[in-house]
């Protein structure tokens, strides 16, 4: 049972990629073909096999100290804002995330 066009529309919303109607058709075909390609991994008996999430096994998350980063890796304000399309003062500028019109979920 393959993915329907409606389900693919839902995935596109979740992935935050606005697709045209024509793209939705192509994407539905693609995803069903891609899922078919993945079937071999479902054919093994994997009971008791531990997953390998990373080729270097003994890693853990690295947390920086909660203090102002003053080393040479810290970006100057102008550099940090320099690639943004909309800025205001020291901030990135974004449309409303609350209120009417759906906002952000």
């Amino acid at each position, binding site marked *: 049972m393959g993915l329907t066009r409606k389900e693919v529309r839902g995935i596109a919303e979740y992935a*935050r*990629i606005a697709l045209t109607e024509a793209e939705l058709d192509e994407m539905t075909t693609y995803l069903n073909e891609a*899922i078919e390609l993945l079937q071999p991994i479902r054919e093994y008996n994997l009971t008791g096999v531990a997953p390998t999430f*990373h080729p270097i096994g003994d890693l853990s998350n690295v947390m920086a100290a909660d203090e102002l980063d003053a080393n040479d890796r810290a970006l100057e304000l102008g550099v940090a804002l320099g690639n943004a399309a909309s800025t205001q003062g020291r901030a990135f500028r974004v*449309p409303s995330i609350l209120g009417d*019109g759906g906002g952000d979920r």
Partner: protein
Amino acid sequence: MAGFDQLGARAIAAGVAAGDFSASEVARAALDAIEAREPKIQAFLQVSAGLALKAAAATDARRAAGEELGLLAGVPVAFKDNMHLLGTRTTCASLMLEHYESPFTATCVRRMLDAGATPMGKTNMDEFAFGSSTESSAFHRTYNPWDITCVPGGSSGGSAAAVAAGEVTLALGSDTGGSIRQPASFCGVVGMKPTYGVVSRYGVVAFGSSLDQVGPFGRSVADVALAMDALVAAGRDPFDSTSQEVPAGFLAHLEASVEGMRVGIMPDLMGHEALTPEVRAALDDARVALGDQGVEVVEVDLPHMASSIAAYYAIGPSEAFSNLARFDGVRFGYQQPGCTTLAEQTALSRAYGFGAEAKRRQMLGAYLLAAGVYDKYYYPAQQVRTLITSDYRRAFARCDAIMLPAAPTTAWCFGEVSDPMQMYASDLFTISCNIAGNGGVCVPVGLGADTGMPIGVQLQGPAFQDHKLLRMARALERGLEESGRIKPGSVAPAFAGKGGELA
């Protein structure tokens, strides 16, 4: 004097150190060659002439002041356009990042520059490294220097083509599923994907964080070894927590004897139906060449390799979806104007900024990581990864390296492979190495009897034994050179000597 494209990296660095020519002269020769060859190759997205001349002048000043010069003094190098270099854009060949200026320099780039290399510019690639032909670049094609009706391979196609055409001496690429080794094969150059963790990923735009690895292209194994020395010399990079301490000495041990070392072959795979007859013949030639050098051939098996495509296309797109979620049009990247909500702005910015394949991979990843689906594909794929890694461990108990094709065919023509599934299938021989994390290198074996196009053979080694792997690669190159099959250091004939005279 000869064209700079006749010289390898070692010869250039030695010539600069000896004062036979200056780094500035080499930089001007490289810029001249790029100007002459680029109209037909289009390997670059940006040529950094100003940075190149400034870096070369600094190298010359160091020499004049009697300071010691680096391993790569004056060597012209190009960087795949997913690597940050201050003073250049980093576009990932995407409209999303068309105007994105590098805010800092990636560690891999920094180390090449610290070794004295001259930065010639940023090379074309498949958008965000999704592809095997460089055709998914949002900006333009790159043409294979051996036949400009053919693709250079990908995703690091620009880097491979720039080296093959003699526009630069070395280039860096990144390899998530074969993106260094396959274009190396298509363009007739040496390309190495080191073991995961050998080269820092800091400052390289992420695709699949547990799969991505940076590595060099060169026209000989020795040049690649020299680049590896430059990349690892400063030790592990504190800015990439997966970076590992790896000793230098790649070049120093390159010519050591391989007598008694063993190379594993998989008889089933050598007769794989996807391989063209000329690729099979190249594998035979490579086996003979290694035998001539005293390497013993043993049979090995990687029983789960057949499922590596499935595992890869579950893991890779999932990681890509997570990584590319950062492109929301707010802090960097394309931003759709006139939107009233952030959700609308994000969805429309991503719709415009990403090309078809980038959208496909992210859609696939979004689906695979969804609740209820995660347990069906992503999790078992990581279990299959354990099986593939165990296969390698068993195989490497019996041999020092495994010999495989780099690609089932030679370079194809533009537009010939347009179906994504067909494109994915062409990764069959390279991706298991990214899944397990061990090193792989592609060495040119000569031209195919039917197509006349370059064919590379791949050697894969155990994790963190990349020195030994390169030594085996050099033995293969030496064996093929001695039998007259290849001439290491050669530039694609149509472009050799076009511009780039060292005055």
